[in-house]
């Protein structure tokens, strides 16, 4: 390749480092510190002895495996095997998110805002920016992997030897590099950072889902997913290096492809061509409500499809759930005898709850769009015309509340369709829907929280995402880490019983709705009385 294309790459890498010198270390330190803290908690949670072997058998259930990945080293479930089983996938996903965020920030987002144009007017090569992003992120991921390896290795816990620790770090590093390359690729295809972000997270979600289905049923699917593949390294158990090398090679191929696309396209252009639009506004686009709907149209449709697909993929796993239970004797003994319900019911309850948490994301995206519009200085177009503050807030709020229900229904429908296609005696649809709707009130509380923050702390609306992260975290780790019960009770979901295993009381529904209503009411009051910032 032409050296001209990469002129001044190192200088640009310096600029990226200068801009992110706080952000990158924070990412690395928090990921490593969190992993070490969890690793240190394991010996107390899983004391050695026959009891531990019983626990590992109960963990061989499809609901858990679909979430955290397969267990390797069932026979000797030592600290290393526990760490790789319970933490590696989760950490790899966080590392992927870090890489997606940072890559978009320095590619499409910079291009969109015209900063790349300024850079390109200087003596730098056409590929220098993309190459510098890859360079900085590769180094970041390697540093993360190395620090992680040293951090885990030095703990000297049972089964966590140095060879395994270095592999653990390497798995995270290559996963990061892979997603940086993939994001760089998507950033070439689309014209906006928003779309590039959508593609990248969609890709991450698909990789996770493919692995979930593969881990329970057809294992070949797990080998196609980068996340599924890296888990096959069997860290701390058999320590295979070949998955790391394959993923690294794949990352290389994708990176070259992305750079190739970058050289042939125009600045600020994508490969999805823009076609001439409407000359006049449609019948829909006649009110703030219509505008909100129009702006979020793609998001809503995309998420609707995603919810249906997610539900169907998970639903199709039910057949394997039964097989699984039949082959795992211990599991068979424990669950039905204790509670009197089947593994299928347990799995369904988990799915319905998780669907509602995922469905809260598009719902919140719409609610927080109002603040995003304000930040982009576009609400003033509306407020300077005959649109009142309550009307504007209501437009986004109503759509957001409705979407919560729609997303949950689609998720339920997906689960039901998937389950019906594989089960001989599928669940009745109406009962499944009623059970799933029990999880709508917590979604509305999240929307209410979004409205409340938009009104009273507009600079901090993103805290909702942090809270949702906490919710997913306690749900994911609640059982694994044996977190205290109050941590789960701090979330709106913590108060909803596991429908359909348990029945939900009228009081619980009313209480949840009341919280949502109060938050929304305060939102209206506050939004009416504050300054609008550009």
């Amino acid at each position, binding site marked *: 390749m032409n050296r001209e294309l990469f002129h001044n790459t190192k200088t640009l890498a310096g600029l990226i480092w200068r801009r992110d010198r706080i952000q990158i270390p924070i990412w690395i330190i928090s990921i490593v510190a969190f992993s070490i803290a969890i690793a240190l908690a394991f010996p107390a949670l899983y004391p050695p002895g026959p009891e531990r072997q019983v626990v590992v058998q109960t963990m061989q259930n499809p609901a858990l495996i679909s979430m955290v990945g397969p267990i390797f080293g069932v026979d000797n479930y030592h600290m290393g095997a526990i760490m790789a089983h319970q933490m590696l996938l989760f950490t790899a996903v966080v590392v992927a998110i870090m890489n997606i965020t940072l890559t978009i920030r320095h590619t499409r987002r910079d291009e969109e805002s015209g900063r790349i144009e300024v850079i390109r007017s200087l003596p730098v090569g056409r590929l220098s920016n993309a190459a510098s992003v890859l360079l900085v992120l590769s180094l970041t991921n390697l540093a993360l992997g190395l620090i992680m390896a040293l951090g885990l290795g030095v703990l000297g816990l049972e089964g966590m030897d140095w060879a395994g620790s270095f592999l653990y770090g390497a798995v995270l590093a290559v996963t990061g590099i892979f997603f940086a390359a993939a994001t760089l690729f998507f950033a070439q295809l689309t014209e*906006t950072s928003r779309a590039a972000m959508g593609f990248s997270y969609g890709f991450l979600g698909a990789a996770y889902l493919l692995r979930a289905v593969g881990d329970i049923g057809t294992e070949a699917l797990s080998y196609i997913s980068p996340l599924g593949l890296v888990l096959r390294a069997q860290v701390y158990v058999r320590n295979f290096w070949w998955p790391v090398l394959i993923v690294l090679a794949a990352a290389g191929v994708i990176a070259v492809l992305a750079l190739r696309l970058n050289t042939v396209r125009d600045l600020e252009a994508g490969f999805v061509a823009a076609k001439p639009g409407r000359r006049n506004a449609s019948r829909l686009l006649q009110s703030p409500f219509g505008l909100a709907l129009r702006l979020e149209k793609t998001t809503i449709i995309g998420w609707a499809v995603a919810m249906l697909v997610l539900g169907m993929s998970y639903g199709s796993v039910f057949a394997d759930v039964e097989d699984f239970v039949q082959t795992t004797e211990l599991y068979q003994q424990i669950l039905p005898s204790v509670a009197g319900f089947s593994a299928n019911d347990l799995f369904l309850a988990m799915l319905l709850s998780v669907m509602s948490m995922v469905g809260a994301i598009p719902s919140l995206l719409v609610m927080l769009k109002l603040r995003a519009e304000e930040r982009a200085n576009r609400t003033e177009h509306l*407020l300077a*015309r005959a649109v009142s503050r309550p009307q504007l807030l209501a437009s986004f709020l109503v759509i957001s509340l409705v979407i919560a229900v729609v997303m949950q229904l689609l998720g339920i429908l997906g689960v039901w369709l998937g389950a019906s296609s594989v089960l001989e005696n599928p669940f009745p649809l109406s009962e499944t829907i009623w059970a799933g709707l029990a999880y709508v009130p917590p979604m509305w509380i999240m929307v209410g929280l979004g409205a409340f923050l938009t009104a009273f702390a507009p600079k901090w609306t993103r805290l909702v995402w942090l809270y949702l992260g906490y919710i997913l975290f306690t749900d994911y780790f609640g059982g694994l880490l044996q977190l205290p019960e109050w941590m789960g009770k701090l979330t709106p979901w913590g108060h909803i019983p596991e429908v359909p295993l348990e029945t939900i009381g009228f009081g619980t529904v009313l209480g949840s709705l009341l919280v949502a209503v109060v938050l929304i009411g305060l939102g209206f009051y506050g939004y009416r009385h504050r300054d609008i910032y550009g």
Partner: protein
Amino acid sequence: MAILRVNEVTKKFGSFTALDRINLEVKQGEVYGFIGPNGAGKTTTIRILLGILKATSGSAQLFGKDAWSDAVEIHKRLAYVPGEVNLWPNLTGGEVIDFFVKLRGANNVNRREELIERFDLDPTKKCGTYSKGNRQKVALIAAFAADADLYILDEPTSGLDPLMELVFQECVREVKAAGKSVFLSSHILSEVEKLCDRVSIIRQGRIIETGSLQELRHLTRTQVRVETAQPIPNLGETLGVHDLEEFDGGATFQVDGEHLGEVIKYISGFGILALESTPPTLEDLFIHHYREAR
């Protein structure tokens, strides 16, 4: 009748005082210029007028109603063009114009098409592909297509080419002829001079000058070039004379407006052969005030 009245408005952001007891009054049928350097408080003032920001103290009234609490009623009769026009990148210009016009309720299709033609805009393109000038055109077309009583324009021509500036000036004259009022914040002083009846100058959050252009000109200096039969003694020491440059048989200098009469009387005693005086431009006035601030 006052369409717009701002009375002792103060706006604080934390401990920073963005506006300090400002007063403004725009009468019906008047084009009012609002000028000042960057960061003087022009946009903050306009946002208070629009009820987007709440004044810390004082009152802002449009059409006799309170800018904050009656915002929607007021906005039914008002059209606004922001200085920095941010539009939705995935909507077309045509869609945005329709949407803006529709929010007010009126729908004058002929007027819209006529303005699109006059401003030479392609309404089928996505706003994300528009240049700054084209985004400004979208906002201007939406504003002038509306049948408003008051037009609030915040540096509306900063991205337009000279030809489009002329179209803009025509539009302002048309709405003025129709008896509407215009509140025009601008940096382009020649434009303000051409269009405005009265002007306020704002500096560091305070209104430092208000009046018609004629009135304001009296406050500043006139450039004078004179040739006389005899040399003029002591001209440099005469009250109100500045920047004196003498040459063989004459001199050029500046005179304060208030002393112009006395100075002319004095030099006329030396046999004036030629006299040129240039009235001060708004630019001189502006720079004069701006320099004082530093």
